[in-house]
């Protein structure tokens, strides 16, 4: 293996092939700032990646109190030393010259610098006034998927029991809400059943709407290494784009957008028809199998074929592949979660595993993935529209139990209605019933659908907007108060990845200027607001990350996400640890449900279930009679056509998504030279057929318009399914003259100018994948090429001879195979 590689040109680095059931070899990836040699690093500080949900463990290199690079942690169970391109280069954003260093307040329409007491004083005065005038329902909190556990927990206590508001959600609503909801629907409780180690054992891996090569590159390296070894697994890829996964797959299905449920119902139909179920598992561990059989009775491949526009024979082959697997691993992400009928589809994937008995043993697992690094923490801490510790807001005993943990009256924790999801919070703000919105670590002015609507909501005079961030993001430019926050590497805390692995991330350097850790900001607010428990003591009685973690442990005790066996000391060890971790499982737990379903009993479950089509809540009485013994619930879902379909005016389907080199609204990654250069501008992907028909070429400047807005970008002709356009999301405006919006008289570049305001009624996750659009050519390429990378799903069709994406010397990183280190876990 080449020890030094351009990791922009070769994002997944070199191969270390391995056979099934063998440990994945260790390969340590390192990138240090130009001119810094390993020997000059003064300190290595333990951390993990904050730029996707893998939780790649790494050490931060420090020299002269500056971050100068990163190195993968060889002994960690998640990445075995590897790092993805965002991990290798992303840290440089911390030192950007345009970091916020002082709080800002809007005065006469302009944001001006002030000190902390002034800024916090304004926030507190506004909060108190609103509480007096209008009550807790007038205040909402919208947080991130990128803070630490300690911060979410503090925020949850503050919002739920301090303010007493029902309006608290994370932007994990955009990426992970469906994963959590699907797990609750099937297993009665959130929590990833499987583990990344299942990749080492599976004989078939099915990736549903999951371009893992770009969203979790390190686990893709693991799959590539298995594919390069003996007895490689076979891959099923369901994705309308020619992703790297699709190229490596034995079977690639490219369904029409918005038809996942039809496709999955056909797969279930075939598996049942061919008798490839596991009747013993179904009888022992599930309820609802008959309803599923009934629901998919007529869902033949031929039926699905006309809906999905995929040949029936290929659907049959796919069913054969997953039906004949001995150890089936399925992974799911945005192609399902951000699409039409998100939860119904995700649940059908759980059903596939339940009826085949593919759960709870090595290689047989489901990974309902997360998009963001600490999405799992928003869910378990209750910062996302759940109660902390996966408690059920409809179960009075759970609320009473939480009230005891917090030493408050149960009545002071709002639980009269489900916690308000983000999209509904913005609707309340639009209507004027929410009058203060505190936005921490996220950028809705770029990431939410229908941006002109978002901008008009955030810009309202009657809405007091607080943002807490590293930079003057598009959202911060619309705020009334801006609080400068410290980030990864500048503060300490823990976070939990998509497979329940908890990592500690330590402070390596001081944050710039007066910026402060998010935890300190929340603690300051709690103190100034004087939140009290029922005995008059402070409600938020911790003072730093470690004491916040201890408080959380107390809250998690006896719950599925039990952290009681973990300590900061232990987490400063060689590897991350998977929850639950307690007395019974002191080394953590690799797989849930190894001996049956454990958290679905009516008395302990997190949710009594919802109608997969309407989102209507089932009652406890129904749940008890359906599932008295707490087995897994097989919930059928019928296919419904998407809400916006192509028409004469808008003949294309439009889908949007994340790509390899960038992350959430490019706030950090857009400030990293190697990553920014790899994909500096938005682009538009079209299929070769459509390009020929419309006489369009690589590099043509086109406009993509929907009834809500338009964007312009240069065209890339790829193997995407005909009739579909793809636009990478989260190119915003902070690095353009417009600042937070398209410049006057120009067309935008943020994909969400065009997306529809519509969400899955079950998980409340917005739909970013099924808009109808038209395409107009603005000017022909004149030899220019599209800025789309050639290394990823946006690779040009064969024979196009475009210059390959590369990073050159600045992107060179080392990779060393290490045969000595043993990986625990």
């Amino acid at each position, binding site marked *: 293996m080449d020890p030094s590689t351009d990791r922009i040109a070769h994002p997944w680095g070199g191969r270390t092939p391995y056979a099934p059931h063998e440990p994945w070899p260790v390969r340590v990836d390192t990138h240090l700032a130009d001119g810094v040699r390993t020997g000059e690093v003064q300190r290595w500080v333990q951390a993990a990646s904050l730029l996707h949900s893998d939780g790649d463990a790494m050490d931060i290199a420090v020299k002269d109190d500056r971050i100068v690079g990163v190195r993968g942690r060889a002994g960690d169970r998640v990445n075995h030393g590897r790092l993805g391109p965002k991990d290798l280069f992303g840290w440089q954003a911390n030192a950007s010259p345009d970091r916020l260093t002082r709080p800002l307040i809007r005065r006469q329409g302009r944001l001006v610098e002030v000190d902390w007491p002034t800024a916090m004083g304004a926030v507190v005065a506004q909060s108190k006034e609103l509480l007096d005038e*209008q009550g807790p329902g007038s205040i909402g909190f919208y947080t991130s998927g990128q803070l630490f556990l300690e911060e979410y927990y503090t925020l949850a206590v503050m919002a739920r029991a301090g303010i007493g508001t*029902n309006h608290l959600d994370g932007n994990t609503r955009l990426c992970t809400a469906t994963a959590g909801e699907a797990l609750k629907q099937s297993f009665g409780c959130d929590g990833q059943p499987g583990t990344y180690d299942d990749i080492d054992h599976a004989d078939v891996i099915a990736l549903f709407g999951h371009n893992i090569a770009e969203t979790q590159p390190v686990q893709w390296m693991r799959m590539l290494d298995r594919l390069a070894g003996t007895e490689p697994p076979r891959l099923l890829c369901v994705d309308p784009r020619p992703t790297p996964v699709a190229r490596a797959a034995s079977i690639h299905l490219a369904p029409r957008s918005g038809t996942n449920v039809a496709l999955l119902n056909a797969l279930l139909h075939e598996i049942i028809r061919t008798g490839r179920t596991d009747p013993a598992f179904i009888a022992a561990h599930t309820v609802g199998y008959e309803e599923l059989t009934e629901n998919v009775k007529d869902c033949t491949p031929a039926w699905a074929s006309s809906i999905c526009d995929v040949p029936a024979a290929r659907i049959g082959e796919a069913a054969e592949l997953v039906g004949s697997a001995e150890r089936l691993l399925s992974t799911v992400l945005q192609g399902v979660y951000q699409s039409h009928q998100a939860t119904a589809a995700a649940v059908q994937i759980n059903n596939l595993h339940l009826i085949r008995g593919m759960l709870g043993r090595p290689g047989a697992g489901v990974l309902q993935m997360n998009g963001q690094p600490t999405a799992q923490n928003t869910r378990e801490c209750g910062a996302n529209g759940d109660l902390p510790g996966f408690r059920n807001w409809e179960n009075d005993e759970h609320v009473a139990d939480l009230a005891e943990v917090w030493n408050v009256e149960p009545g002071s924790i709002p639980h009269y209605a489900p916690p308000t999801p983000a999209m509904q919070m913005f609707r*309340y703000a639009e*209507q004027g*019933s929410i009058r203060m919105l505190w936005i921490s670590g996220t950028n809705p002015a770029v990431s939410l659908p229908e941006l002109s609507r978002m901008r008009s909501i955030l810009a309202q005079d009657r809405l007091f907007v607080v943002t807490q961030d590293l930079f003057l993001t598009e959202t911060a430019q619309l705020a009334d108060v801006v609080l400068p926050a410290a980030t990864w590497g500048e503060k300490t805390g823990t976070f939990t990845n998509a497979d329940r692995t908890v990592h500690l991330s330590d402070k390596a350097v001081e944050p710039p200027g007066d910026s402060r850790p998010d935890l300190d900001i929340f603690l300051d607010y709690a103190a100034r607001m004087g939140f009290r428990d029922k005995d008059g003591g402070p409600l938020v009685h911790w003072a730093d990350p470690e004491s916040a973690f201890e408080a959380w442990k107390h809250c998690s005790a006896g719950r599925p996400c039990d952290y009681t066996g973990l300590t900061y000391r232990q987490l400063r060890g060689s590897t991350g640890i998977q929850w639950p971790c307690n007395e019974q499982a002191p080394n953590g737990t690799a797989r849930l449900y190894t001996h049956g379903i454990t958290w679905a009993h009516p008395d302990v479950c997190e949710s009594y279930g919802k109608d997969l089509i309407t989102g209507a809540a*089932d009652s406890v009485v129904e749940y008890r009679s359906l599932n008295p013994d707490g087995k897994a619930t097989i919930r059928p879902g019928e296919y419904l056509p998407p809400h916006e379909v192509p028409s004469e005016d808008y003949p294309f389907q439009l889908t949007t998504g994340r790509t390899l080199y960038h992350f959430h609204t490019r706030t950090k990654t857009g400030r990293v030279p190697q990553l920014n250069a790899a994909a500096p501008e938005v682009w538009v992907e079209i299929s070769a057929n459509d390009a020929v028909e419309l006489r369009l070429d690589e590099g043509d400047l086109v406009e993509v318009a929907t009834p809500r807005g338009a964007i312009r970008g240069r065209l890339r002709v790829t193997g995407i399914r005909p009739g579909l356009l793809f636009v990478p999301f989260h190119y915003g405006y902070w690095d353009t003259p417009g600042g937070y919006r398209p410049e006057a008289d120009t067309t935008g570049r943020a994909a969400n100018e065009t997306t529809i305001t519509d969400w899955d*009624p079950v998980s409340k996750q917005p739909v970013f994948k099924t808009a109808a659009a038209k395409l107009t050519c603005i000017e022909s390429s004149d030899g220019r090429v599209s800025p789309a990378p050639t290394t990823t799903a946006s690779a040009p069709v064969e024979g196009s001879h475009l210059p390959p994406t590369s990073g050159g010397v600045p992107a060179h990183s080392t990779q060393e195979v290490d045969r000595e280190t043993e990986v625990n876990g």
Partner: protein
Amino acid sequence: MNGIALILRVLRDGETELAEGLLATGQRHRAEHEIFHVSTDLAQWSREHAQRIAEAIEREDHARPEEASGPHSDLVPRSQNREPRPERACSQPALLLLRDLRDLHLGASANSLYWEMLAQAAQARTDTRLLSLVSACHPQTVRQMRWTNTMIKSLAPQLLTNL
């Protein structure tokens, strides 16, 4: 007219009205995006129900032609009156939304009760065709009721305490 034919007619009207009500509510509250999209989806169920009931009515009339033209009984009131109502009580859009959801809920509940009656009658007459019609449609009516109930439960606290 026999009782079953009568209830079928009432239910056909009820389902037609509910379909219209769902669509109208969606249109009136387009900015309530979840209401708009889901009510439009659910209107489709009622439309299909009305269609299938109409087919059942035809079969019924065919089987008992002498009763088909019997007078409409007043014993069974029309399920809902969907004339647009004066807006006076509900000048606030938030209240209007709750009222519309309430109306939909009542409409669906009325339909559900008629389905119940039909189911009982179908059993008494051992009419398997009718029974299978009921078992195909009635669960969806119940789901419509649950949806309006859930939406009211989620929205009412915010809408009523922050007027």
